């Protein structure tokens, strides 16, 4: 049995013979502080009698444990904090038989983390005690999964444009060898397919990068009004080309500050506006409304939701913000007067490569990843995403981002996060 060493000890007394009075209290509080500061989550659990007859209580937990498991001060039963059956079995076994265990589990929910758990017996006290250590291994797991996903998606989606290019290469070598007109035409198609592949790879990489850090909440502050203005400025040439117009209704800069990473939020606004402009009929206006201090309405029994349902569409919350009842949000609504989306297609909108059946995306088809990127970014920001649409009545996307705390000084630049 390993014994924690106390190099400052003067006698050769065994640990059992030490009493609290003889141990240097400064050193003890140093050790306690060290446990408290550990990045891994630590729990010390104890039971008064035989396991099964008396409850297992948590008698100590460090800061990392309180954060990971959201421990409230009043609760001390282990089952209130951790109810996964495998973990409870392991702890019971460790308490009863002194065996050590290790296992992994997923916390579940929208911000699921992959956690590795160790249980070790503690033979220091007369009561049955055990140590439970939890380590967040989400980073490593995600990296692995992202790589696999990226490869799978890339190879699948690039196959079609690649096949198209190969086909045209064959044709140019064969039939169209001496036909300059056909040559020019086919080369143009090949160029556009190559561009499409390039965009696809960009978006896939983008999505991978976002998903990799999705479990890490952003920490900077972002001025939404300035950000949206910047994005809309960048879109002016596209708007002109399509004869579309943009209406922006927003408070003054500095009034709508959200917690977030600027580049990612820009991408969200960009992707939603791209869709709005792309799927809207020529000349129709796209409107953007920014409001501050909004509460999240989950109640889809609102009058307009019912009206949308009557028209064959609906209001669907694609992403629920965490702790919605406690928070206030900066709300961005983007509305287009396009052909709208039918009710049965709403749940799948943020699925990768999903295209609403029958909807034409114009001359330049997108990568199919725009909304998936939006969803993952908003999820990372612990925000909300709602879609309202009905066939023939246009579509409105609403993004909710947690408002920055009041004490922050307004600035258009995010602090590095």
């Amino acid at each position, binding site marked *: 049995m390993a014994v924690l060493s106390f190099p400052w000890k003067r006698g050769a007394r065994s640990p059992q013979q030490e009493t609290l009075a003889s141990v240097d209290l400064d050193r003890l509080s140093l050790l306690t502080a060290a446990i408290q500061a550990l990045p891994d989550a630590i729990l010390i659990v104890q039971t008064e009698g035989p396991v099964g007859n008396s*409850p297992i209580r948590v008698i100590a937990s460090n800061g990392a444990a309180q954060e990971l498991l959201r421990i*409230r001060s009043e*609760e001390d*039963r282990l*089952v*209130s904090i951790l*109810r*996964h*059956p*495998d973990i*409870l079995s392991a702890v019971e076994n460790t308490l009863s038989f002194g065996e050590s265990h290790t296992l992994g589990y*997923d916390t*579940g*929910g*929208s911000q699921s983390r992959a956690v590795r758990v160790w249980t070790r017996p503690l033979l220091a006290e007369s009561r049955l005690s055990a140590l439970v250590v939890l380590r967040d291994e989400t980073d490593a797991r995600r990296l692995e999964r992202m790589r696999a996903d990226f490869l799978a998606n890339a190879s699948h989606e690039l196959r079609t444009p690649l096949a198209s290019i190969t086909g045209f290469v064959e044709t140019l070598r064969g039939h169209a060898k001496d036909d300059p007109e056909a040559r020019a035409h086919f080369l143009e198609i090949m160029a556009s397919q190559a561009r499409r592949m390039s965009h696809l790879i960009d978006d896939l990489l983008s999505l991978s990068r976002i998903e990799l850090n999705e479990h890490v909440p952003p920490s900077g502050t972002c001025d939404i009004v300035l950000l949206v203005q910047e994005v809309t400025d960048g879109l002016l040439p596209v708007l002109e080309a399509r004869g579309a117009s943009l209406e922006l209704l927003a408070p003054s800069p500095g009034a709508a500050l959200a917690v977030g990473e600027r580049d990612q939020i820009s991408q969200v606004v960009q992707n939603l506006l791209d869709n709005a402009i792309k799927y809207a009929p020529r000349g129709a206006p796209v409107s953007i409304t920014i409001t501050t201090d909004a509460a999240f309405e*989950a*109640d*889809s*029994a609102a009058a307009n939701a*019912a009206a949308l*349902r*009557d028209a*064959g569409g*609906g209001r*669907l*919350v694609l992403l*629920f913000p965490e*702790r*919605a*009842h*406690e928070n206030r949000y900066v709300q961005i609504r983007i509305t287009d007067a396009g052909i709208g989306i039918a*009710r*049965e*297609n*709403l*749940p*799948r909108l943020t*699925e990768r490569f999903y295209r609403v059946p029958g909807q034409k995306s114009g001359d330049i088809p997108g990568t199919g990843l725009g909304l998936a990127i939006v969803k993952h970014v908003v999820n990372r920001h612990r925000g909300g995403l709602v879609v309202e649409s009905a066939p023939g009545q246009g579509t409105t996307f609403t993004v909710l981002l947690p408002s920055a705390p009041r004490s922050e000084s307004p600035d258009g630049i995010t602090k590095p996060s």
Partner: protein
Amino acid sequence: MTEHTLKFFGEELEQLKGEVIRMGGLAESQVSQAVRAVAVRDVGLAERVVVEDETLDLLQHDIERSAIRLIALRQPVAQDLRRTVGALKLSLVLERAGDYAKNIAKRALVIAQADPEIPLTRSVQRMGELVAGRLKEALDAYSAGDIQAARSVWNRDEDIDEHYNSLFRELLTYMMGDPHTIGACAHLLFVAKNLERIGDYATSIAEMVPYEVSGDEFSDPRPKWSSVEEPSKGNGDFP
């Protein structure tokens, strides 16, 4: 009652709640694993879920026995009575949710052997993850006695219904396109329906939270829209 008896009774109630939460953890795990077994065609996992359902049944019986014993011996009133009755009701809800999970696992066994493989398991998996997440939130709210969090779960059961309707339509389309897949698709339909029912149970769990704390119910005017009740708008192929 003496001070000693009161404290002991409080302990018994806490113990009862602890058992319910423990049962909740197992039910959660069953649901997640059953969904996973469908998604990745894991026969071994599916079989384990089916076997483990027995443990859920045993836990339910234990809780029922403990609750009735508590009522008989302690004759609780007011909040204590609600908490005891609440625990009993929840144990039944969790046992039924577990049965649906077992059913899903059984169908996973069939689907895993189906050929050709149906690409729709991704949609089912997504719905499954949504439902598992909802169940987790409901149990978290119950464990913490957090009425606001419970209300949040209670408010939004409609999105699971929307996923179900969308999935149903998808499966129909797929079956019509390739009749060879009808067998496997039919099983997926049942899986989707089971998931929808588990989602309903999550809402029931959330409803127990205000009931236990204050005897109240969530009572916003929340029209529970159902595709069965409303006349279909231009399409009649929802069940």
